[in-house]
């Protein structure tokens, strides 16, 4: 459907596709839409070149940013309801189950011990193995417990690492987002790493460039060619010119696969959880980023 609309709008299809444009764009970008549309309606043959030059004449500068996410490494802690439900389910399952081999063996051993300790014990009545060493099931259990204690797993929650905002290892149970400090206009802001779009490359390549331009070596898998969000801002009226009204930043999602060697402590990075975003991002920016950064 979209393809047929965009197939080089000609003069006579002008009004119809214009209406489509206006209904499609929810923001007040009607002016730019008009301007670009009138340019592309010249002729079919030059439509390709028109789109490139049409871009150049659009007043918005394009930038691509990467939304690098570190997915949770450890399962989340149970909430109180979940805890209670879990206990109840375990208890129910235990009640409804049958006795296992190990439990039967425990019961048999206990019975044999009680028979042995009774006063009228006659070893000749025992009709099983005589001279073989009988390994009690309880002993087996004890040896298994010992083995488990000798293994020390890594801790799930480390309080001091959690406070270090620039470490990738913090808050292993939630997903984290990478923020970098960049110079925009006159001030240093915390943003998702972004870089300017150059002619001749796709926006995703721009995002990959943005990721590579960071001092740390992050290996990430980009999820598809389509952007997941957009943020546009108009420059203050004083700085506005004919050719640059504002900037559109397109966000691309990526999943961190390897964080590489730990970055220097003063590196301008932050790994933040969803609820900490508000502290570092500007409100309008945060509203847009909040939508596609899922913390499920």
């Amino acid at each position, binding site marked *: 459907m979209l393809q047929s609309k965009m197939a080089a709008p000609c003069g006579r299809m002008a009004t119809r596709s214009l209406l489509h444009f206006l209904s499609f764009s929810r923001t007040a970008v009607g002016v730019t839409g008009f301007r670009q549309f009138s340019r592309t309606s010249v002729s079919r043959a030059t439509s390709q070149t028109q789109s490139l030059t049409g871009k150049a004449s659009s007043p918005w500068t394009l930038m691509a940013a990467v939304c690098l996410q570190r997915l949770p490494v450890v399962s989340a802690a149970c909430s109180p309801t979940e805890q209670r439900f879990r206990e109840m389910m375990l208890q129910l399952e235990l009640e409804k189950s*049958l006795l296992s081999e190990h439990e039967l063996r425990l019961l048999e051993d206990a019975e044999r011990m009680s028979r042995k300790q009774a006063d009228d014990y006659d070893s000749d009545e025992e009709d099983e193995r005589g001279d073989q060493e009988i390994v009690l099931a309880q002993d087996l259990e004890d040896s298994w417990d010992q083995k488990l204690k000798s293994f020390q797993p890594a801790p799930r929650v480390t309080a001091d690492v959690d406070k270090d905002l620039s470490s990738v290892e913090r808050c292993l149970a939630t997903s984290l987002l990478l923020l970098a400090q960049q110079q925009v206009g006159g001030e240093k802001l915390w943003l998702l790493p972004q870089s300017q779009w150059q002619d001749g490359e796709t926006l995703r390549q721009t995002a990959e460039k943005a990721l590579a331009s960071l001092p740390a070596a992050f290996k990430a898998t980009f999820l598809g060619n389509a952007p997941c969000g957009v943020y546009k801002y108009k420059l203050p009226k004083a700085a506005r010119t004919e050719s640059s009204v504002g900037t559109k930043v*397109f966000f691309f999602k990526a999943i961190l696969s390897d964080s590489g060697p730990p970055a220097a402590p003063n590196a301008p990075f932050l790994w933040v959880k969803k609820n900490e975003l508000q502290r570092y991002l500007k409100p309008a920016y945060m509203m847009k980023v909040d939508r596609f950064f899922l913390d499920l």
Partner: protein
Amino acid sequence: MSVTLSRCLCRVLSRQTAPPSFLLGEHHHTVQSPWFAPVMTLKTSAPLRAEPKKKKKVDPRREQMLRERMRKKLKKLEKVPPELIPIEDLITPAKCLDETRERSAPRLSFEESEGQALLLKEWCRYKQEQHIAEVEAVELALEAQREALAELKLESEELYQAALKPDPLLFPFTHEGPAYTPPKTKYEAPDGKYNNITKVYTQ
């Protein structure tokens, strides 16, 4: 039949030949030696009567037909449908039906059973809220993407088309999910050994 005919002829001729010798020589009382066969009987004696056996063309074909029929019957008999492989998960093992394995079910007090029922309902509500939140979050994310694509289309057609193209290098994509404890750095897992007793069926 030709043999009997020749025999009759033989007898007739021998009768015919006998009298001339009788007539010829009353002084000829020679005993006819058995080896001295009369000329007339030459062509009709048993060994010379034997003709080379005619090759009956129908016979080999008939034999072939017989063999084919036998083969077809054998094939039909051998066409047994392959035995179905039993799904071991769906067969209740006999051990589970053993009565000695049953646990003594504990009697729950009224409060406990009430508490369990209420907890189940609370859980249901909790899960429903979680699900609704999830669905809303996904809807928001989709909305954000739709908006981004609309803005991109307004900007440049070429970039929009490039964004719509599927990424062939993305799949297969694997990611290790969360475990209970984080992985230990420089941990050497001990080698384990196991006996694989799964039954392999061949049809």
